[in-house]
C-alpha cells in the first residue's frame, strides 16, 4: 500500500516536472514533448491512476451505490478503534525511531568516513534481509519462552515472563527496527551538512554541550528529522506483516483490517473504502511534507 502511494506521488512529480521543463523551451515544441511523454503517461494511467479510480468506484458501488461503506467505517466503534490504533502505532514508532536514529546518525556523521561506510553497509544490509525473516527473528526473541525472557528469568531480574509480544510493545519494537534505516539515511545527510564549526562556536560562546545540542544541532537537523519522520510515519500507517505477526488482535492496524475484509469477508466495497481513506490520509501527509520540507530535501535525503 504505502509503496504504491509513494510510487504514484513520486512518479507524477517527475512527470509534472518534465512538463514544466518542456514548456520553458517555448510553446512551439509542446506537441513533440507530449509525444515523448506518452509512454510514461500511459504507464501511469494504466498502473496507477486507473486502479486507484477503480478502487474509489468500488468503494461507492459495492454492494450497492451510495456512501454506506464510508458511513459504516466512520460510524462504527470497532473501525474507529482500528483507525486510532493505526495512528497510535505509527506515531509511537515514529517517535521511538527518531530517538534511536538520532545518536546513530550523529555518530555516522562525525565518524571517520572509512568506518562510517562499514556501519552504513551493515544498516543497508539489514534492509536487504527479508522482512518476514527479520520479523520472525523478533518473534523468537520476544515471546514468553524467548531468548530475552529466558535470559532475564535465569539471571533473576524477573519471576514471570514479560509480555513483549502480541501487544503494542511487540509491534513497536519490531517496527522501529525495520524503520530505522529510513530515518538514519536522511538524517545523516542533514547532519553531515551541518558545519561542525557551529558547535565549536557555540561552546566558545559559553554554551554547555546540552545547550549546544538543543539550540544548535537540533534546530539545524530538523529538516532531516521531519523528512525521515514523515516517511516513517506514512510507511507505518500502511504496514502489514510486522503488526500482523507481533501484534495482538486488540491492536489491529488498518492494513490488517483491509486484508481481512478483502480476503476472508470478501467485502470489497468496505475494504476499498478503508484503503481509500488510508490513501487520502497518506497523500495529505505527503503534501504536508512537501510543503514543510520542500521537495528537494525530501528526494535528496534518501
Amino acid at each position, binding site marked *: 500500500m504505502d509503496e504504491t502511494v509513494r510510487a504514484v506521488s513520486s512518479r507524477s512529480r517527475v512527470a509534472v516536472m518534465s512538463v514544466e521543463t518542456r514548456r520553458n523551451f517555448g510553446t512551439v515544441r509542446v506537441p513533440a514533448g507530449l*509525444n515523448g511523454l*506518452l*509512454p510514461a503517461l*500511459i504507464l501511469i494511467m*494504466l498502473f496507477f491512476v486507473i486502479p486507484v479510480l477503480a478502487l474509489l468506484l468500488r468503494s461507492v458501488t459495492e454492494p450497492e451505490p451510495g456512501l454506506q461503506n464510508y458511513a459504516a467505517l466512520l460510524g*462504527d466503534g*470497532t473501525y474507529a*478503534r*482500528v483507525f486510532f490504533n493505526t495512528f497510535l502505532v505509527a506515531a509511537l514508532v515514529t517517535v521511538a525511531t527518531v530517538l534511536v536514529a538520532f545518536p546513530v546518525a550523529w555518530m555516522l556523521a562525525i565518524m571517520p568516513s572509512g568506518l562510517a561506510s562499514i556501519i552504513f553497509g551493515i544498516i543497508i544490509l539489514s534492509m536487504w534481509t527479508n522482512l518476514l525473516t527479520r520479523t520472525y527473528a523478533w518473534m523468537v526473541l520476544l*515471546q*514468553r*519462552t524467548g531468548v530475552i525472557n529466558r535470559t532475564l528469568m535465569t539471571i533473576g531480574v524477573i519471576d514471570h515472563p514479560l509480555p513483549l509480544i*502480541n501487544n503494542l510493545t511487540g509491534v513497536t519494537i519490531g517496527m522501529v527496527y525495520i524503520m530505522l534505516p529510513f530515518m538514519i539515511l536522511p538524517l545523516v545527510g542533514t547532519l553531515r551538512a551541518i558545519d561542525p564549526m557551529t558547535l565549536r562556536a557555540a561552546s566558545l560562546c559559553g554554551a554547555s554541550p546540552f545547550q549546544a545540542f538543543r539550540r544548535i544541532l537540533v534546530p539545524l537537523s530538523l529538516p532531516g528529522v521531519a523528512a525521515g519522520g514523515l516517511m516513517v510515519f506514512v510507511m507505518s500507517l500502511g504496514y502489514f506483516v510486522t503488526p*500482523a505477526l507481533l501484534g*495482538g*488482535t*486488540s491492536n*489491529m492496524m488498518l492494513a490488517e*483490517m483491509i486484508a*481481512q475484509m*478483502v*480476503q*476472508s*469477508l*470478501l*467485502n*470489497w466495497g468496505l475494504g476499498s473504502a478503508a484503503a481509500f481513506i488510508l490513501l487520502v490520509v497518506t497523500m495529505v501527509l505527503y503534501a504536508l511534507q512537501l510543503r514543510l520540507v520542500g521537495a528537494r530535501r525530501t528526494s535528496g535525503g534518501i
Partner: protein
Amino acid sequence: MKLIITGFLAGFIATTVPATTAAKAEDMVFTSWGGTTQEAQTKSWAEPFTAASGIKVMQDGPTDYGKLKAMIDSGSVNWDVVDVEMDFAIKAAKDGLLEPIDFKTVPKADLDPRFTTDHAVGSFYYSFVLAWNKGAVSGEPAGWADMFDLTKFPGKRTFYKWSAPGVIEIALLADGVPADKLYPLDLDRAFKKLDTIKSDIVWWSGGAESQQLIASGEATFGQLWNGRVFALDKDGADVGVSWNQNLTAADVLVVPKGAKNKDTAMKFLAAASSPAGQAKFAEASGYAPINTKAKAEMPADAVKSLPDAHVGGQINLDMNYWAANRDTIAARWYAWQAK
C-alpha cells in the same frame, strides 16, 4: 495515431500475456494451503494422476478467497481445483462462484455424504482436538471446559484466529450447552464465555504456528487440527491430546466458475476422492478420508489415529449453518477480537 497504436499494443499485451504464461490446454493447476498438507496432496493425488493420465498438475497456493473471487470476477481463472473450507464452499456455491461437480466423471456412491455437495467433493475431514504440552501442564485437561478454567489450568491457551466453525462452539460446550443444542449458535453467550479468558488467549493463524506454540510451551494448551497434533507426536514432541467432544469440519475441493480446464479438473477430482487417493493422503497427513472405502486400503495402525476412531462424543460442526451466517458471525468475531 501513435496513441491508438500504443493503446492497442497495451491491450494486446494485457490479453495475450496471461494466456501464454497460463497452463497448456491439458495441464491444470491445483491450489491448496501449502505446508505438509499440500505436500501430501501432491504425493497422494497429483503425482499418481500425472503418471496415469500424462496430465501435468501444477501446484499453486496458498488458497486465498479474495484472489479466487478476483479471478472469477475478471474472467481470468487460473486455478482449476481449489482446496477450500467447506462452509466457504457452500456460501460460494450460493453466490455462483463455483462450477457444479460432474458426478458422471466423479463416482459419488462411496463419498461420505456429510462432505459432498452439488458443487464440492470432500478433500479430507479433520477434528479440532484439545492438545497440550505435557511438560508445561500439570495434570490432564479432560475437555473444553478446562480451557476456560484459569485456576486449575493457568497459562496461555491458543485458538484458531479466523472466524470459522470451532471456537464459538467450544465456548458454548464449555459453558454447558449440550452438543445437540449448539445450533443456532448463541453468540452473546459464546463471547461472554470467551471474555473470561480473552487476555490469556494466543491466536494461531496457521497450522505450523499452532504446532510451534504448543511445542515450545509458548501456549500450554490449545485447540488444534488433529493432523497437526499427529505430526507433532510423530516428530517426538511431548504432547497430550484429548478427543473428548472432538469437532469435525472438512476441507473440500471445488472448481471455480469459468475454470479453464474444467473437464480435466473433474477427472482430477475423481482421482483425489478415489479410495486409493484418499487412503494415501490420510496415511500421510493423519486427516480422515472422505471416501468410505478408503480405510480398507490403509494399514491398521494408521486408521487408529484418525478422527474415525473417536466417534464417541464426536460433534459435527454445522457447515450449512455457518455458510448461511458466515458474514454476520465474522463481523461480530472480528469486532470482538479488536476490542
